[in-house]
């Protein structure tokens, strides 16, 4: 199985999750209040002060075919608003 890490602006969280549901993910995990730096933007804690929220970090454990669907549904949004997405391997503990 695969593990997908998505990091993007908290303000886009609801929209992103909608696209993930459209890709029929089996589940997801969300961490909010995440900060960081990307190629062109620093997201610091004072973003939260201004109502922009910080970043959100979303983890999805799923099969490769879900990853393919996510590419179609979620990637355009990510490219528009900015953010990163990385895939790695993972095996369920069982």
């Amino acid at each position, binding site marked *: 199985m695969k593990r997908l890490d998505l990091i993007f602006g908290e303000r886009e969280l609801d929209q992103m999750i909608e696209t993930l549901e459209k890709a029929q993910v089996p589940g997801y995990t969300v961490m909010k209040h995440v900060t960081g730096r990307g190629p062109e*933007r620093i997201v610091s804690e004072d*973003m*939260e002060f201004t*109502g922009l929220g910080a970043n959100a970090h979303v983890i999805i454990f799923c099969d490769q075919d879900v990853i393919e669907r996510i590419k179609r549904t979620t990637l355009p949004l990510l490219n*528009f608003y900015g953010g990163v997405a990385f895939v790695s391997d993972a095996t369920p503990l069982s």
Partner: protein
Amino acid sequence: MNTSLILQNVLTPPVLFFFLGAIAVLVRSDLEVPSPLPKLFSLYLLLSIGFTGGLELEKSGFGGQVLPTFAAAIITSLLIPLICFLVLRLKLDLFNSAAIAAAYGSISAVTFITAESFLENQGISFDGFMVAALALMESPAIIVGLLLVKLSGLKRKSNAKMIRFRGILHEAMLNGSAYLLLGSLFIGFITAANNPSAVLKMQPFTEKLFYGAECFFLLDMGIVAAQRLPSLKKAGSFLICFAVGMPLFNGSLGILIAKQLGLGPGNALLFAVLCASASYLAVPAAMRMSVPEARASYLISTTLGLTFPFNVVIGIPIYMNMVNKIIPMS
């Protein structure tokens, strides 16, 4: 204009705590107000300002200068972002211009509160309905800012197409801070009309505590403002001049309008401050919808890092001075 007026404005606890926070960053103290505590205070301030404004509005009613002032407030906050946009486009791209223009058209509640305290200190009277004017001026500029992107961008990239009119209205009227402010105003109004004993029970929370909570909030605002200063340097001298010059222009405009409306000196100062101040709470979040490219760091460093302290420290006494020259004491 005398410096004692400035000093008296600066030597109040809220302003001093703002500088305490700012200096903490400059001397690299590890003082911090961890999130979401700043949110607690901003929610509290909006709720209290709104509720108290509602009480006052119920007292004053809608007669006399009230409705004309409201109309002028809305028109001004549609006009100012247009002027700002024209100025900003001299140097900045479409997205940044629209975002910053919207911020200067909108208002800063904390600057408004500071001006109220200033008037109280000077023993100059003002009316409670001005808070309702504040609430009315929060949203229109956001609509203008988003429309500017949409219209100018029509022939351009895809982003502009993604913005729909409904979405614009939604972001402008229903962003968290505008919604809470207007809602609390409404609740204050209803409570004052129906339930005077409840007003008394609210006062320890919404009024007595207010000044101290404002100090705490300004401590954090000082920290955030100072953290933003470096990115202001990157922004260049054009934006720095804008952050100081534009409030002066907008404030003067506000005073002229106040004179036409026949407002007294207290209300005139508050109107000027509403025009001169710039938003850092509602606008950045609302603009992001259309303008993910707008470097929010420019926006916040300009409005919070420079315009806010400028208004609070020097601006208010300057506007008061202008008011005293232009508007006869009643």
